[in-house]
Every structure is written in structure tokens, then in C-alpha cells.
């Protein structure tokens, strides 16, 4: 069997259920692959791991992958299991926010590390300054959780439809207390959770074949997970090393994730790619990428995998 290591972007959770499902259901084995899945964490940069040779394939978001590419690390998207973005801003209604027009003067929690650019370009399309000047918003670098909105330190925080949003609900706020703004709706959604490899890997046909088998098995895993959500969540729980996840939360997350992967073949949608690039290049005074990336994705792998 061929060895292959996959580095996740985040900790073990249903966000990555497809890969764990493929592993546990033997889909990788069927493709003669011996896959190791490495969970990530907030202090793990997948791009750095792959640069150091610690992984063959990484799960990453397009903004940070493109940023890494500009920094000199030739990451290439080989497949895109997520077709929709799950990122949104969640605000408390009692702050008086009913639409993005109410943002000025408010404090917003934003995830950085590449994810701030969609936000910044969104604000710049809305004409709201983010540099602390009058009539603008105050931006906070949000940590790993939703405390700022619970403690009232921020009026809105970044959330994922499948995760942080439910943490707010679990903490005791209700759907009615909250109002959400999806990045999709603002037209600034970026491609999340794609599979990336280093460019030189694609020069070797044998490697490409291996990757194709990997993508094929992974997509099979994703489809299986979409159909068997309860079991998929349980598989995730078994693989969680921190022992901190709960079944309730993972089952719910699996349901939300399924909405984002639904209908995906794994093939990258060029339009979505170009939209993301446009968003990132528009972003504020210090854009994450300065020139249109060349060769940042390839269809070579999915072409074989989906044959």
C-alpha cells in the first residue's frame, strides 16, 4: 500500500468527517492507500507542515493557501469537497443590529490568519472603515471561541454555521436573540476546506495517480458521511484525542457540514475560485495577495479520480 499523510486544518471534528469515514470504512484501503490523518489546532499551520515535509496533502482554506503561495510555498488545490462557505457574522439582536448598515460604531470579532480578507473586502464594499476611524467598526482578533459575544465584549463574532453558532446556542442564547450574516450572502464567500499539495508532486504521474485514488476514496467517504450522519459523527468521536467533543454537538455539526458538501463531486468550481481571488485582491489597504495566482489549482487529479 502507498503511504499518505493528511494534515487537517483544525481539531478532529465532523468538519472532517469524510476523511475519517473513508479511513474507518476501508475506502482508502480499497484504493491501496495507507492514510494517516493528523488533526490540526490553532497553533498548527497546515502550509507550514507540508513545507516541512510533515504531510503529503493538507486541508486548507483558499485565502491562506493563496497567501502561502505568495509567500513562496507553491500550494496547489487538487480537489474541493466543500462547495459552500459556512462562515458568517453572528450578532446579538439587542445591540440593535438588523442589517450590515448598522455595523458602524460596533465591535466585531474576526478570525485572522487569512480569514480577515473576505471580511475586509466585505466592509470595503459596504464602505465601512475598519482602521478605527469615525463611522467605522472596531475590529477584534477573535480567539478560538465565542466568549466575546457571550461576555458582551463584541457585538458580533465570526462563526461557522456548523460549529461556533451552535456553541452560542448551547451557551443559552436562542435563535431569536441572534441575527446572522452569511459571507455567501455578502458575496464575499471564499472556498473553504480544499485539498492542497505541493506543486512538484504533480510532476510525477505515479504521485498524481496516488492522489487521484486518495481524492476518489475521500469523496466516497464524504458521500457516505452525508448519508450516515449519526455513524459518521460517532467515527469522529472515536478519533478525537482530546476527549472533549460531545456526541450531540458532532451529530449536529455533521448535519450542517452535509449542507456544505452536498452535491460536490470534489471538482473545483473555477467561477468560485475567481470570485475568491477577486475578493482577496480587493481587501483593504494591505491585500493578502497582490497578483492573480497562476497554477494555484489543477484539475489533473480530479480528472483521473472522477473518470
Amino acid at each position, binding site marked *: 500500500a502507498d503511504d499518505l499523510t493528511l494534515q487537517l486544518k483544525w481539531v478532529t471534528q465532523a468538519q472532517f468527517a469524510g476523511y475519517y469515514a473513508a479511513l474507518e470504512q476501508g475506502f482508502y484501503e480499497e484504493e491501496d492507500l495507507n492514510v494517516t490523518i493528523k488533526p490540526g489546532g490553532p497553533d498548527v499551520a497546515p502550509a507550514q507542515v507540508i*513545507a516541512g515535509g510533515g504531510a503529503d496533502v493538507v486541508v486548507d482554506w483558499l485565502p*491562506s493557501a493563496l*497567501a502561502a503561495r505568495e*509567500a513562496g*510555498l507553491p500550494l496547489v488545490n487538487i480537489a474541493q469537497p466543500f462547495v459552500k462557505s459556512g462562515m458568517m457574522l453572528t450578532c446579538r439582536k439587542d445591540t440593535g443590529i438588523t442589517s450590515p448598515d448598522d455595523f458602524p460604531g460596533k465591535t466585531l470579532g474576526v478570525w*485572522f*490568519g487569512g480569514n480577515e480578507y473576505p471580511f475586509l473586502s466585505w466592509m470595503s464594499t459596504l464602505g465601512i472603515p475598519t482602521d478605527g476611524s469615525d463611522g467605522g467598526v472596531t475590529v477584534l482578533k477573535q480567539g478560538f471561541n465565542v*466568549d466575546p459575544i457571550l461576555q458582551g465584549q463584541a457585538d458580533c463574532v465570526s462563526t461557522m454555521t456548523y460549529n461556533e453558532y451552535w456553541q452560542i446556542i448551547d451557551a443559552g442564547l436562542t435563535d431569536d436573540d441572534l441575527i446572522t450574516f452569511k459571507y455567501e450572502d455578502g458575496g464575499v464567500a471564499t472556498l473553504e476546506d480544499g485539498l492542497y499539495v505541493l506543486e512538484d508532486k504533480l510532476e510525477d504521474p505515479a504521485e498524481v495517480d496516488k492522489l487521484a485514488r486518495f481524492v476518489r476514496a475521500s469523496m466516497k467517504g464524504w458521500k457516505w458521511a452525508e448519508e450516515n450522519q449519526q455513524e459518521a459523527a460517532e467515527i469522529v468521536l472515536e478519533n478525537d484525542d482530546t476527549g472533549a467533543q460531545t456526541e450531540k454537538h458532532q451529530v449536529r455539526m455533521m448535519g450542517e457540514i452535509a449542507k456544505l458538501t452536498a452535491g460536490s463531486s470534489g471538482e473545483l468550481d473555477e467561477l468560485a475560485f475567481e470570485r475568491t481571488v477577486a475578493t482577496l485582491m480587493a481587501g483593504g489597504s494591505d491585500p493578502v495577495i497582490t497578483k492573480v495566482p497562476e497554477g494555484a489549482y489543477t484539475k489533473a487529479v480530479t480528472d483521473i479520480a472522477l473518470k
Partner: protein
Amino acid sequence: MIWVIAVTIFWIAALGVNIRIANSAWGNTRAGRIFVPVLFGLTILIVWEGLVRGLQIPAVILPPPSAIAVRFSESLDILWMDFVQTFLKGALSGFAIGCGAAFLTAILIDRSPFLQRGLLPVGNFIAALPIIGTAPILVMWFGFDWQSKAAVVVAMVFFPMLVNTVQGLKETEAMQRDLMHTYAASYWQSLFKLRLPAAMPFVFNGLKISTTLALIGAIVAEFFGSPTRGMGFRISIEVGRLGLDMVWAEITVAAIAGTLFYGIVTLVEKKVTFWHPSQRK
């Protein structure tokens, strides 16, 4: 390969020079004492540069010092802004509050052996609470701005400072105390004329430990939420986009600021505890 060999040769040569200088009469002059460590540092930088180039280590893993220097000089304004936020606002204020409070607490509990016996072990226990756990809690309590960073610093420096000061206040010799006793000196007289001066070497020990803790505490706390500036903020976002040259530029600022801070405290210590045997010769 050429690079690696060149680097090795250079290293050995530089080390040779250093050993020579250190053992010569020059090594005892002020210039020598500055030159030797500087040459040592330069050697490390050049070896680093050579290895990164020679082994073609990708810049996204370890950038060469030259790239860091370029980034440093191009980003002075950002670095300065971050420095003000993290060091001047977060670390310094936390250092002042934490050390000041610990000093006063030490004087207060010094009168009560009961409190000392109870508070010091518990204090040591609390001091062992790792910052990684306390920082998110304090950020949750004190908000995103520098106040929470100062709080983290206070939590980190309080007990090392307390333990050292309490220890220092005990550092008088029996005879020195007896002397005060023969003068029927009051509590405050013997505090100010005997015990505080005698405690100073220990107080400075605590201060020196606290300088490095303060900076690290303020930076690490920013990983758990911050406004959009600060050294920790910059490091964490630049890691996310593989701007490692900027990360190292910030680390450089941290190392310089920390060493200077330490050095200044050491200088003050020299002035204040000039009489202590460890400062003589």
C-alpha cells in the same frame, strides 16, 4: 555543500578568534566584554544564513537573517506600533502593578508568620498554573485590549516577586537584628534601616525573573484575543499566512526589548546593591 563547508570553516575560525580574545588581556577590557558576545551572536547569524542558503531550507520554514533584516527595516512603523501596544502598555504596566503589589504584600505578610506559612505554599501552587490556561480566562475577564495582557503579566510576576521579597526580608543576620534590638528600634525603623536594604539583592532577583516573564506573558496573551495590533497578534496572524520573516522580525524586537529591559534592571541593581559581595570585585 560548499555553503555548509564554508559555514563550518567560518564557525571554527570565529570561535578561535573569540577564545583568543577572551583569554588575552583584551578580554578584560570593556570593549572586549562587548565584542566577544557580539561576535558570538554574529557568528550564529552568519551560520544560520549559510545553512538556510546552503541546505535550501524554504523561507516559509526558516527565513534567512538577511530576509528578516529587510522585513524589519521595511516594517519599522508596524513593529513600533506593536511594541507600544504589547511592551509599553501590556508588559510594563503589568510588571509595575504586579511587582509593586507583590512588594507591598510581602511587607504586609512579613509581620505574620502565620500568613507566610499559609500563603507561600499556596502562592507557589498558584504560580504553577500555566499561562496557557490562565491567559484565555483573563482575556475573557478583562477584555481584548492591553488591560487583559497586563492582568496576565500581573498573574505571572506576582508570586516570583512575592517569594523573593519575603525571602529577602528574612535575609538579615541574627546579629544585625540584635543590634536593632539593642537600640530598641521600632518596627518601621528596623524595616527601613535594616530589612529593606538587606532584602534588595533578593528583590532584584525577583525583578530580573519578572522582566522576562512580563514580556512573554504579554505576547502569549495576545494569542487568545487582541485588538488588531500587538506583537503577539502580529506573530499569530503572520504564522497563518506564512509571513515568517515578519514573525522573526517581531521575535527580534522581543529579544532586543527583553534583553534591554533585563539589562536596565541589572544596572539599577548594580547601583542599589553595590555593597553586596556578588557585585564587588
